[in-house]
């Protein structure tokens, strides 16, 4: 993994990485990727992928309200709210 790749991944992951930290990430992530590449040698022809230990279909439930409007309760722990909205830095100039 080179610096450009680390930067691309950190952008996709929305994680700020400083120029100073790039070499460490490059080394550590490359080592981990190299380590997991061992799985390439497993013989998996005709094997279906296993996404989950429980292979049941999603359950259906009654179409009725179980919990009412809890906006106030949920927003009480938000960093910044106003008039029932979550506030973020201005998006549209």
């Amino acid at each position, binding site marked *: 993994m080179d610096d450009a790749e680390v930067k691309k991944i950190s952008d996709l992951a929305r994680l700020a990485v400083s120029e100073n930290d790039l070499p460490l990430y490059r080394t550590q992530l490359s080592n981990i990727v190299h380590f*997991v590449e061992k799985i390439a040698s497993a013989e998996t022809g005709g094997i279906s992928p296993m996404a989950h*230990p429980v292979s049941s279909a999603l359950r259906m439930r009654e179409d009725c309200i179980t919990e009412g409007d809890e906006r106030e309760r949920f927003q009480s722990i*938000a960093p910044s709210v106003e008039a029932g909205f979550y506030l973020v830095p201005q998006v549209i100039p």
Partner: protein
Amino acid sequence: MRDKTLLELSRALAAKEFSCLELTQAYLKQIETRNPILNAFISVTKELALETASAADTRRAKGEALPLLGIPISHKDILCTQGVKTTCGSKILHNFIAPYSATVVKRFEQAGMILLGKTNLDEFAMGSSNENSFYGPVKNPWDMERVPGGSSGGSAVAVAARMTPAATGTDTGGSIRQPAALTNTTGLKPTYGRVSRFGLVAFASSLDQAGPITATAEDAALLMNVMAGFDEKDSTSVDIPVPDYTQDLSKALKGKVIGIPKIFFKDLEPTMALRIEAVISAYQKMGAVVKDIDLPNVSFSVPVYYVIAPAECSSNLARYDGVRFGYRAKAPKDLYDLYTRTRAEGFGPEVKRRIMIGTYVLSSGYYDAYYLKAQKVRQLIRQDFQKAFETVDIILGPTTPTPAFKLGDKIQDPISMYLSDIYTIAVNLAGLPAISIPAGFIGHLPVGVQMIANYFKEDRLLNFAHQYQQVTDWHKKRPKETS
């Protein structure tokens, strides 16, 4: 009274030997004395505990007879507790008070148990040493220079140092069993789907499972009787009947077949192998039969895990964006800056590494080679276990490759840390239940033996574990209270 098992406490409370309040005070006092040294708790809910303990005394006086009513418990700080901080060991949730409680937490409340506090952990349960906590490492009471294991290190140490009679943990790749082994406690990871994940903050959703950490297998059975069961709020919860886990504890093991995977002993240190072989002979004396088994694909477990778990982690942890709850970076110049800086400042190094690896293996062009391939190998690992369980009742081996290692030893080398879970990870990939119980000491350090059973056979694991604890007293050994 702090040294009693849950069953003994239950009987003592029923016989009015002491009150729930006195019992709770005794544990709170132990926390006050020991926690400043061991750092096992992130939050101690003293007032709430005293209040609910008094209420439990009133309820007992009125004749209520719930077995665990008025007995304290502590929860890993990744299970949401309404009104009490849930940090996940992270700076990003340093101020997070969940607006609801996890189903597991509610079930213990309904059983009448007293919450003593929330225990320390590796950040978002990612780690095997408890050094990845924003709130500082937990110390191993058997040797203060050593790690207690992780990620449920706080829970394991709280039980080992008798700051709580029992605790909950969660296990994604060994996070209940490995710290249990390193602290001389009993830790059970249930079958995936047996215990509700609702309100358990997600790390790797197809692997996470909550379970008990206790002093004995019998105590674990008592907690499982409360924890296990269907929950409609968890779409992966399995709707099958829950047995009384105490029912089969005393069943004889004569004729039961124990599978020994040769691969688990291949590179095992001789001192560790000796301990495990001693456990095997104890079972043989009880009439169990031993059989060698092959798990040919288990050697891929750690690399498979470090594709699947980070992939799920990168997706689950996308929610921490500084908008709806938790930490938010100061003075963001735009929305992108808010997201990237909140996450960079809020997460610790290991969590960031895993998010990056997960993002990488899921990114365009790499998905098939890593994620899809890992899912296929995961299937092979499950098939290996299924084949083995056609001829054996239980699979037995070490929980960890070594006893507790020193603080700082592996923290700079992620892969060496990952390999400390070499024997536990396959179980999570397959979704099977497994237990770690005390198996003696190497020098002054405890080690554990791991047993794995087929899906939903927690009762069999507890039966095996309880029988071993009837003929040995390793699980009764307690660390000296040094500073």
